[in-house]
């Protein structure tokens, strides 16, 4: 029986154009054997959730370096709930001060990866999900 490949959406909410990290993670996850879709920069939370549902993904990885993560990451989780897609796991990365991480986790962002995280940590997290 063929096992369905895990599908991941890497997305950049907000207005910042720093996509080096997002593109690296997208490509490294692809090389690790996952199906990866990358949205490009400057996506609204609405557009990200729409793509995630259309593409039937299992994970969304949000990347943001401008400091708007406390507003925009929770918004994505909220919209997923509104659309009955709360089974999609949301992770985040970028310039995220450590003290914001408990807040983000409380808002439903299941994992936060800060600068210097090896890609294996992301893979381990993905594989740890049921």
């Amino acid at each position, binding site marked *: 029986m063929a096992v369905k490949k895990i599908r991941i959406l890497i997305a950049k909410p907000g*207005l*910042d154009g720093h996509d*080096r990290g997002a593109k690296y993670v997208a*490509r490294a996850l692809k090389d690790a054997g996952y199906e990866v879709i990358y949205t490009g920069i*400057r996506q609204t939370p609405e557009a990200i959730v729409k793509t995630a549902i259309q593409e039937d993904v299992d994970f969304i990885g949000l990347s943001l370096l*401008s400091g*708007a993560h406390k507003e925009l990451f929770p918004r994505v989780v909220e919209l997923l709930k509104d659309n009955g897609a709360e089974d999609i796991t949301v992770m985040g990365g970028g310039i995220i001060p450590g003290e914001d991480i408990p807040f983000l986790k409380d808002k439903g962002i299941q994992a936060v990866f800060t*600068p*210097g995280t090896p890609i294996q940590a992301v893979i381990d997290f993905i594989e740890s999900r049921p």
Partner: protein
Amino acid sequence: MAEYKKIEQRKKLWEANVLGKVLARFPETRQSFATGSALPLERVYFPEPCDEDHYLENLGFPGEYPFTRGVQPTMYRGRLWTMRQYAGFGTAEESNQRYKFLLEQGQTGLSIAFDLPTQIGYDSDDPLAEGEVGKVGVAIDTLKDMEILFAGIPLDKVSTSMTINAPAAILLAMYIALADKQGVPRDKLQGTIQNDILKEYIARGTYIFPPAPSMRLIHNIFAYCSTEVPNWNTISISGYHIREAGSTAVQEVAFTLADGIEYVRSAIQVGLKVDEFAGRLSFFFNAHNDLFEEVAKFRAARRIWARVMKEKFQARKPASQMLRFHTQTGGSTLTAQQPDNNVVRVTLQALAAVLGGTQSLHTNSREEALALPAEDSVRIALRTQQVIAYESGVTGTVDPLAGSYFVEALTDRVEAEVWAYLDKIEELGGMVRAIEKGYVQKEIQDAAYRTQRQIEAGEQVVVGVNRFTVSEPPPQNLLRVDPALREVQVKKLAEVRKNRNAGRLGETLAALKEGARSPEANLMPLILDCVRAYASLGEICGLLRSEFGEHRETVIL
């Protein structure tokens, strides 16, 4: 010549008799050595027979073509570089305080960071500005904010660099309007707008309009400033962000100069005369850790640009051939781990910029991998420049690394590799085509991916990240931008909207709309009228969006 032959012979003997034995007993730590950008390195460099034969052609004198040794005859003996820390956050009031602090600490020029809504042409009350107002820079909606930003700072006493691209014409218009209000003559205005849209498509992402109308705005600025604001740098052609996106040093220079070539060529095509605008073109580069490669990069960039301007575009004035540049130390080299180590990295990078002959310099602060910097960190960053300037002794002679067998060989190597890229881009039909095809983005992404793979594999050492790590408590006292700030800014904007003359505003916007539809019109004076009538940045950009359309990214993975 006889001496070179002797050196060749002796070198063979040395390799056989001395080196061979040493290598047999003590092998080197690596099979091969390379620069940070993977240019191969020799074990030892020797004089090359052709060096002296081509000295005048390749190196010459400082302040003279091809400017390899620097753009001024005396360089830092005459005047130090401008110490210019990029800063801005929150409201215009807060940023104004930071600028005054920096000027009091001995900084010699201002560099304005705008928030992302400003950079992308949205007002603070736009729904798309959610979460972003005042975060990575100061929020500017109308001329009113600009008046607050420069309160108590006479515009004829400072030079001001503004990191603004797609809406550059609007912010420059606000600055001119403010100067008029302060009673400062326009020819006394000194500073720079970044105004480099091509690298926004490639690497930085704050584009608004498609390439054609974006290039028109740039030409309008070139033409307007050549007569109205003659000492203003009309563009800062930027490799900084290309490097931050992960390019090599060679790619940084190649793609930046290719952008420059596109601006010059297209400006000439619309009828501008090269020597009337080229002297106001400036550049902006990154400085990474590989000291000698960086120095070679700056020297090679000057030489190539001089040749391009003289030979390709027949520029006659020396100022048109001269590559003047600002440098910022490499943000992407900073680590979130053990952030104090970043002070050392920044020192090396700043030294490279100075040894490479920079005209102005921003040094990053230690916690910038985590947050905007606090005042004490900004002070250390500025002090780093001051120690190099006043204590290190490297300013006492012009182009101090010239004549190093290694640095000259590396300068030549960088130059050769850059020319190969420039040729390739010409083959593709120029930089706009190369960007549209995604070629440039792909080259950078591949380099970024290789680097990160090497770091993850431990082949490239990053101190404190993949070697010499410690467990450390999370950093304290990071600067936070108050989220309530957006409300303050929105209120201020509403106040301006209420108090301005609606009739005058309507007229100026209607004139701009008409201008946008007439390809021959210069939009600068029309935009100036709009900002004087307190039109907001979002209103002006909104109007131009509906006339010009919006750029869509070519997503490449």
